[in-house]
């Protein structure tokens, strides 16, 4: 005797069974997505927050009778704790920041770009991987260790070989900053060179160009925007660096006349004096104003670098 299967109603067997997820799962997922969105916009919140809080602490100084914006930007008289006549001019520190960063870039740019060219054009893949690891490690060295190196090792070398009276000066800070910003310049520069299409290289080689000619006449012109962005990011790093220049450049608030003069940078000035300035005093607020100045300087530099990089990608 055979049992025939009981026929099922047609609509039941064909009906697509709808996946029903419990309400808590759907709601939970929605909640998580809101959380993700909040985290996504957190970067904006933090950047605005940084601007807001630094501005908030600095703002009241603009109305103080001891302070004028013209004096702040164009005077080199920095006497924040004077009993009789307080003066808050940061021109000497702006000069300090630019002299140290400028000299550092004079050292770092040729070496950084040279190394980027070597890594992207001249070496084999083994050497390339090794060099990239080393550059990554170089970038990881904390700035306070660089400052310590400047203070102990570099300053002695400078006194010994140049006969400068003090070893902590513009040159010292610049060498340290150069070593610190080279990794950025190399890695961004290498990306820029990698973005040049291989057909350019092949065309050059087919015409019988040496690789030297290829680099000079083809790659550098083709990658110049990316390389400019690399240099700008290096500048941004240099302007914003604090601990290394605090320890390596000495502490003299005056406009440097030679690379063997001690200087103080904007960042180092905040780091050196914030601990001593009583909260809500004019001195304290001026330090926040310097911070605002730094924030805007690095903002412009980074924005420009980003626009350049993006321009390349769009092409």
């Amino acid at each position, binding site marked *: 005797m055979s049992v025939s299967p009981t026929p099922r109603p047609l609509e039941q067997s064909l009906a697509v069974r709808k996946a029903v997820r419990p309400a808590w799962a759907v709601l939970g997922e929605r909640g998580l997505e809101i959380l993700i969105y909040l985290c996504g916009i957190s970067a904006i919140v933090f950047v605005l927050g940084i601007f807001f809080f630094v501005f908030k602490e600095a703002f009241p100084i603009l109305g103080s009778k001891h302070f004028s914006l013209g004096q702040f930007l164009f005077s080199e008289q920095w006497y924040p704790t004077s009993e009789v006549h307080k003066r808050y001019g940061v021109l000497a520190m702006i000069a300090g920041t630019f002299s140290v960063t400028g000299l550092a870039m004079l050292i770092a740019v040729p070496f950084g770009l040279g190394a980027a060219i070597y890594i992207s054009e001249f070496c084999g893949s083994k050497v390339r991987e090794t060099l990239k690891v080393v*550059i990554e490690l170089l970038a990881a060295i904390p700035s306070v*260790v660089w400052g310590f190196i400047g203070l102990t090792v570099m300053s002695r070398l400078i006194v010994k070989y140049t006969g400068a009276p003090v070893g902590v000066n513009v040159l010292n800070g610049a060498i340290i900053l150069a070593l610190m910003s080279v990794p950025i310049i190399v890695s961004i520069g290498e990306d820029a060179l990698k973005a040049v299409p291989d057909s350019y290289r092949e065309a050059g080689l087919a015409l019988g160009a040496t690789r030297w000619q290829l680099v000079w006449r083809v790659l550098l012109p083709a990658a110049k925007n990316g390389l400019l962005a690399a240099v700008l990011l290096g500048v941004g790093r240099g302007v914003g660096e604090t601990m290394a220049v605090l320890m390596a450049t000495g502490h003299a608030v005056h406009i440097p006349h030679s690379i063997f003069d001690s200087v103080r940078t904007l960042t180092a000035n905040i780091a050196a004096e914030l601990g001593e300035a009583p909260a809500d005093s004019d001195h304290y607020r001026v330090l926040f104003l310097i911070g605002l100045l730094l924030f805007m300087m690095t903002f412009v530099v980074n924005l420009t670098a980003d626009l350049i990089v993006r321009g390349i990608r769009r092409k």
Partner: protein
Amino acid sequence: MFAETPLVRRKQRQETIAKWLFFSMAASMIIPLILIVGYLVARAWPSLSLSFLIDVPTHGMTEGGIWPALVGTIYLVVLSLAVSAPVGVLAAVYLNEYARENWFNRIINLAVINLAGVPSIVHALFGLGAFVYAAHFGYSIISASLTLAIMTLPVIIASTREALASVPRSFREACWNVGATRWQTITAVVLPNSISGILTGVILQVSRAAGETAPIMFTGAVFYEAVQKGDLFPYRLQDQCMALSMHLYTLATQVPGVKESIPFATAVVLLGSVLLVNASAIVVRGYLRSRKKW
């Protein structure tokens, strides 16, 4: 017919010179690293020992070890990681999985780039204004590690994003096609396939947070804090603490008459741990990349 003409020889000479020139430029970045590490280790040698790590500073910090600073750094790093890792990973998920290519996404990108570019001392000012005063956390481990977390957020966002972007789009499409929601796709397909990049970002965050000085200097790190030798939990969250990077700065610039080798040994411990952490990131990345299935 194919004899070397002077032109060919000149070109070959040019080629060799170019190669060596660029090689020497690359080498001149590596040699300092090796020389510096070697010199620091040599100067630090008399003080380097296990007891240096677990002893407390004595005689007004001119002798003894670095235990309180070491523990303080671990506190700060762990706490800042606990904040910045989830926020950073989720932010990267938003940017890579949810956000559309529009002006708003562009602004978030700009914000991330600028957050990475803000000078560390400005982060310190922000931490002081926002956490120490406005939020009334005072000078404490919480203030310092929150400042560190915000500062290191872009590190995690950038590397997580890169990892998410490297997961092929076809993986996601396959998952959507079997009826998974966006979030299910992310947890089941996208995150497991990009875990190596996320891990690398987290490790890099640790090394960055451990080395920073300026942001913690005015928010929670102090010159000296009395701690028992070998005590594992010496600080409470609302306490101030010592930190390795701050300790090195203090020893190098503020304390007269320190035994010569002690600042060097502190620098070696800081540098060594940061480089070790970074090296492990590189190893992890290499290992997981070699097992990648696509």
